[in-house]
């Protein structure tokens, strides 16, 4: 009786021993890792603290191609027994370092921090325009895409000024990287917020060698704004130019991926009238005649006239509405024209999806021009057919 029991106990014990030390190896308590939620990439130059380190001889061999700034959360001076935490200073810590490889910089942070970095919760990547002039976006995001910790849903932004400034905020209790990742919620109110580009989307865009736009950030006075878009050239992967806010809006309407936003113009008395788009439908029809490729763009929008400063107007009659429709159509057409001039003449890049329409509707023609598409696009004729309809005047009192 006793010998089989001993054997069984021994086996159980040994198997437990086998499992237990081999387990646990991947155990990391959540409070023992440092989450970073934002990463900003800037032109290479030693960060101020780094300069001090280096002056004391803390160096390693590098050429300072890029500076990376991480936003670590939550960072709080630990207050024990403090039930009322009313003096919350900053909830995040930004840490900068420069070097030649992004991974190397991240690992370099490990000799400055008390907890290992963990990238599962990375929300935004911000790349400065200055850096994108020198390096291609493919090179910069290579590590971020390869790494398995970093989610493909991370958003990518471009910053007009230094990228690390976008990760600073004067607002209390606000983490700028969260602010940036949540700002896309405003797409239902304005088309100036572009469809967010995630890391995985960026991957497909860079590999297809097509030009594309990224949302641009502008900082000022400790706050930031999503302002316009940056055009990344498909073949070089570098920054070639910016679109202003109205261009960005038009771009969104043109590609039809968002039906929000306002159109403001003056009426015949020189007073402001504002129209808000309720629904918008756009259609790009390519026409191929021999070598000549042209596009017909139809834009139909329905919306409400929601603000007018003209006290003399009688805003319910059909005539009035039709006259206003006309003015709004002219205004929209002018905006579109401005965008097309920039895209076709200034930057010579198709970021509005004309090429894609052509590829879908006329694959044979697309095949011929595919290699040189940005040039062909800049020469093709684009005509607009714009219809704006007001179907709602809001509520007002009749005299």
């Amino acid at each position: 009786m006793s010998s089989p029991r001993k054997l069984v106990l021994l086996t159980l014990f040994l198997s437990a021993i086998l499992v237990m030390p081999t387990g646990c190896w991947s155990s990391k308590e959540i409070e023992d890792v440092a989450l970073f939620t934002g990463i900003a990439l800037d032109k290479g130059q030693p960060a101020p603290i780094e300069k001090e380190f280096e002056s004391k001889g803390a160096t390693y061999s590098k050429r300072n191609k890029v500076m990376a700034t991480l936003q670590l959360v939550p960072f709080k001076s630990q207050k024990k027994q403090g039930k009322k935490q009313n003096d919350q200073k900053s909830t995040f810590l930004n840490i900068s370092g420069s070097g030649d490889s992004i991974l190397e910089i991240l690992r370099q942070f490990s000799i400055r921090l008390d907890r290992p970095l963990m990238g599962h919760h990375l929300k935004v990547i911000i790349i400065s325009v200055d850096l994108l002039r020198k390096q291609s976006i493919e090179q910069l995001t290579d590590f971020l895409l390869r790494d398995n910790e970093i989610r493909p849903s991370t958003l990518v932004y471009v910053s007009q000024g230094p990228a690390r400034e976008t990760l600073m905020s004067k607002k209390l209790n606000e983490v700028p990287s969260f602010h940036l990742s949540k700002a896309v919620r405003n797409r239902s109110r304005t088309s100036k917020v572009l469809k967010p580009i995630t890391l995985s989307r960026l991957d497909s865009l860079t590999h297809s060698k097509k030009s594309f736009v990224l949302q641009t950030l502008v900082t000022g006075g400790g706050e930031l704004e999503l302002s316009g878009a940056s055009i990344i050239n498909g073949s070089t992967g570098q920054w070639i130019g910016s679109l202003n806010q109205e261009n960005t809006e038009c771009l969104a309407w043109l590609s039809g991926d968002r039906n929000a936003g306002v159109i403001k113009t003056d009426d015949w008395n020189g007073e402001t009238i504002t129209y808000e788009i309720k629904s918008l439908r756009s259609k790009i029809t390519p026409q191929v005649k021999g070598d000549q490729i042209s596009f017909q763009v139809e834009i139909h929008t329905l919306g409400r006239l929601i603000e007018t400063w003209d006290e003399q107007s009688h805003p319910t009659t059909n005539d009035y509405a039709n006259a206003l429709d006309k003015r709004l159509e002219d205004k929209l057409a002018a905006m579109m024209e401005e965008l097309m001039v920039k895209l076709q003449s200034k930057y010579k890049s198709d970021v509005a999806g004309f090429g894609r329409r052509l590829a879908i509707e006329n694959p044979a023609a697309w095949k011929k021009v595919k290699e040189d598409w940005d040039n062909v696009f800049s020469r093709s004729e684009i005509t607009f057919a714009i219809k704006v309809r007001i179907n709602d005047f809001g509520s007002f009192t009749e005299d």
Partner: protein
Amino acid sequence: MLSSVISYFPTWDVWLQAAIACLVPIVASFVYKKTYSLAGKGRNPNTAENKKDPDPPAPNNSPFSGDYATDLATIRERIGGNSDLCSREFRMAKLNVRATLFFVTGMQNDRVLDLQLMEFLMFEAGADVYAEPERLHDQLPFNNLFEAPSLDSFNRSVLFGYTGLLIEGQPSGLLIECPDGANRAVQEPLSEGLLRGPRLSFTEMLSVNTSMLRRQGLSEQLEIKTFQVGTRLQKDLALAYIKDIVNPDLLEEVKARIQKMDFDFIAESGYIEELIEDNYLSPFQQLQNTERPDRVIAAMLEGRIAILLDGTPFVLIAPATFSMLLQSPEDYYERWLPSSLLRMLRFAAAFMALMAPSLYISFISFHPGLIPTELALSIIEARQGVPFPSLIEVLILEVSIEILREAGIRLPKPVGPAMGIVGGLIIGDAAVQAGLVSPFLVIVVAVTAISSFSIPSYSAGITLRLLRFVGMIFAAFLGMFGTILFFLLLCSHLTKLKSFGVPYLTPVSPFRPRDWKDLFFRAPRALMKRRPAMMKTQDDKRKS
């Protein structure tokens, strides 16, 4: 050609790993069998019979001598040492013979004894009784009147509470007046409360319990068979079933297992459960216990068998399946839509009661990336200053909750609720304040505890509580992988488990679509026209 094939062959270390991986199930099943046979021997039917034969109940063959004085002396000698035994010797006036009344104090109705029995025997019992000894049964005006076959059974019965009567000139002792010991009134079921439905619950008296079953409805098919169990102290055990529904093979199996039971005293139905269940190593109960007659009768109508034991209000239902543990009689009394919702809630609660702490451990210690960022941040802030790894943290709180719950059962009624408040609120809050545990964990543990209270069967609740700790260990060592592994192990064990030949997980596995009507949700009664397919009943129509 061949060399190119060979180049794809794995190296020896891969083969070694494969061999080890192959050994794991073999070793595991070997260990399991060894463990099973260790304690399985006591339940072996052969040993039980072998034991019985060499030591036959020796005292059984000592008959009455027929001589009053001798028998009286023998009885006095054998059981006279009991101080609670009263023997009242008297003379029957009309017959002029001596007689002795034996009884144990406190087990008879004193009024009946004094006023009726004694009066009758001393003054009224006349010559007609005495003249025809063989007609004694008919002549004495008692409802319960047996002739004791031997002196020893007379002694035993007297000590069990019968009133024994020894009359001069009679060949053997008589047993009159059944035991009427202290008994409890019928109360509401304590462990299985519900809002709607009968409030009746079984008591400790077997005869009361069987009568409760009979009173459920008129039927000639409800059959109750009584057995004597226990080798030293014998007790009555009754099997109840519906004769024309129950599967005869199942009935035979239950009877056989009951007869094979070999234990000196069966104190409670838990003893029976452990002695006749299929797999004593399983954490899951393979017989359902209940104190509700309506539950028993419903089970019998599904083709199950009830095992009633004298001296306990808990009746066993065999066979049991997993789905029964999460069903409540109320599901059938309420309308089908709300009861389906409640039943699904119970499944969710059972899952949470089992897995919530292990999920917490695996998320906190292994996969912080799987928590939504905002939640991760608040957990980090909450856990700042908690000095323990999550397993220790969870164990501290879980163990104290379990202790609290155990204490709550033992505590006297007026103190109980106060203790719950002290324990739940003060200890939890103080532990957070002291930095022992994080506030987030308090939520997890509270949700777990509340979920486990929603399980209708108390025994199933204990099983889940036990398994929760196992799951926590798995999670602490292997993270999410361990948690899933634990769940899979549990599932594979349940798939293999059987209760009296009925697979425990049926109708999920083996798949019986017909029985799904009464599994996660309860179909309207109009759709449940037939009895569960899993019971293989003789008559499976519920509607004509």
